[in-house]
């Protein structure tokens, strides 16, 4: 097993860094969560019981999961058609499109998020347009709503969905689509029977990234969602930095970690059924 030994040593530098800076703090966090008093003197599962017996906190977990799934759904809905368009475009158009796709990644999270405030606010771009067109008599409420947050997250997370999707789709044999068409399938049938199943591996990679990052998007969640919408990241911040209840914040953190992990594992499990070869 000589090759295995070589592989292991190549992974060692990052492994050691992760062990010291990631795994060890995680264990510490788990330890803190198992204390029942704020001074960390007494061991106990009181904070776990407090978290899971309270409908409010369970609601926060559910809302966080739902936000992640909504972001996945919204990005998928727009990313798939765009990816199809991208792959059918000329090399020149692809370059321009790729730049536009990457744009959200090139701006800082804070700037992007505040830009969305300008767009979603009472006197923001969307409301000005809606009022001018007479679609509504009163300004729509978008800031501090889940709809507004999903809209903003969709733009921010879009590259994470698009890039893996496009890279898988580009690898598809264009003859497959031609074969489908020649066999009598229209555009929709060709998409759902050929392109969609074959691009699922890319979608699963993208969905995993979008889900994990939407669930944990602290800045977007708290700036656009505001104080009305509480998700696990802002709950952690509040408990740790405002209330100074570290054991309870640790419970929230570990819960967030495993919630996201569960979602990611579910997507991976889906991925096993999407093997295309």
């Amino acid at each position: 097993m000589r090759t295995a030994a070589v592989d292991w040593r190549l992974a060692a530098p990052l492994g050691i860094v992760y062990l010291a800076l990631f795994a060890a703090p995680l264990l510490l966090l788990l330890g803190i969560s198992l204390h029942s008093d704020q001074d960390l003197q007494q061991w106990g599962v009181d904070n776990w019981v407090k978290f899971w017996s309270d409908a409010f906190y369970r609601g926060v977990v559910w809302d966080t999961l739902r936000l992640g799934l909504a972001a996945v759904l919204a990005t998928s809905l727009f990313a798939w058609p765009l990816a199809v368009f991208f792959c059918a475009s000329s090399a020149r158009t692809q370059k321009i499109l790729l730049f536009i796709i990457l744009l959200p990644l090139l701006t800082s999270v804070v700037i992007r998020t505040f830009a969305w405030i300008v767009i979603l606010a009472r006197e923001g771009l969307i409301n000005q347009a809606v009022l001018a067109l007479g679609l509504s008599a009163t300004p729509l409420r978008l800031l501090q709503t889940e709809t507004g947050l999903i809209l903003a997250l969709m733009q921010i997370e879009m590259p994470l969905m698009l890039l893996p999707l496009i890279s898988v789709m580009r690898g598809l044999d264009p003859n497959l689509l031609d074969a489908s068409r020649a066999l009598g399938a229209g555009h929709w049938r060709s998409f759902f029977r050929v392109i969609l199943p074959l691009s699922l591996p890319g979608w699963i990679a993208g969905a995993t990234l979008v889900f994990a990052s939407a669930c944990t998007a602290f800045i977007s969640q708290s700036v656009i969602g505001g104080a009305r919408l509480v998700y696990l990241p802002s709950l952690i911040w509040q408990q740790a930095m405002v209330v100074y209840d570290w054991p309870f914040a640790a419970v929230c953190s570990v819960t967030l970690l495993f919630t996201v992990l569960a979602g990611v594992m579910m997507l991976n499990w889906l991925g096993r059924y999407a093997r295309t070869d």
Partner: protein
Amino acid sequence: MNGVTHSYGNARAVDDVTLEVKAGELVALLGPSGCGKTTLLRIVAGFIRQSAGQVVIGDRAIDDLPPNMREVGIVFQNYALFPHMTVAENIAYGLVARGVNKADQRARVAEMLATVRMEGFADRKPRQLSGGQQQRIALARALAIQPRILLLDEPFAALDKNLRLDMQIEIKRLQQQFGLTAILVTHDQEEAMSIADRIAVMNRGKIEQLGSPIAIYDEPATPFVNSFIGSSNILDGVVEDGRIRLSVGATLPCSLQNLPQGRPVQVSIRPEQLMLVREAAPDRFPVTLTLSLPIGGQLIHDVAAADGTTIKVATARHPGAVSSLSGTWHCALTPEAKPSVFPLPPT
């Protein structure tokens, strides 16, 4: 196909091509890469909309029909089977798209599998099949929808040599059995020669010659067709008193009439149209033998004429054939040889 033209930017990939394929006929589009043959096939399939001209199947122009309404079957070089579907699902794909009911689908799939002799493979995935088997399934998938015309896009190029011959025979068998009308795109002249009823030799977007394989080989219409099909010795000459005086030092009768005195010409003589003899004559030229290679049933001789031109001569390999490299040999035309003459522009 009527005056079909297609341009990419300024380049004319297909230039005013008119071609009629008769029902039940297999026509090969033969040419080097970039000659426009694949573009022409994609125009017929509807993947490319031509810039000008018309494609008619039966008596109906199909130019405005999308590919899925054209009822053409296409087989690709890389098979293009759907990797996530089983063999049966692949074959049934076109039937499902047409709304054929389940029972008929199953019957048709079984029938097609039997046709391509792949019974028992229905539940395999394409990756579990060899190249030749995948190509059979691709063929079955294309034929399942009973296409009005079968388009074959370099279908044998990815197969190894022995398998290629099997597949060629297979396709020819199916084409004759079902009376299929088919267009085969290929750059392999042997392939075109062996299975096509007629060959359209293409070069630079145009059809240079359309004819039976034998006519194309024996009577090439242009120097391009001559050099592309088979191997050939090109000799320079001039017209003199209705005959051709070759620069290698022989005078041959001229097959073309009305060429003016002194007109430069190229004469193409196939290796098997030449033989080596000891005796000199006016229509023979002296050569020195440099190499003899036994290739299959033939001996290929590499000879040099007095002016240095190298010439290939193919003779049957039988006992008592040319056995000695030494001495003076003369190159002569075989009795039935009809060399092709191509006039050059007057100097």
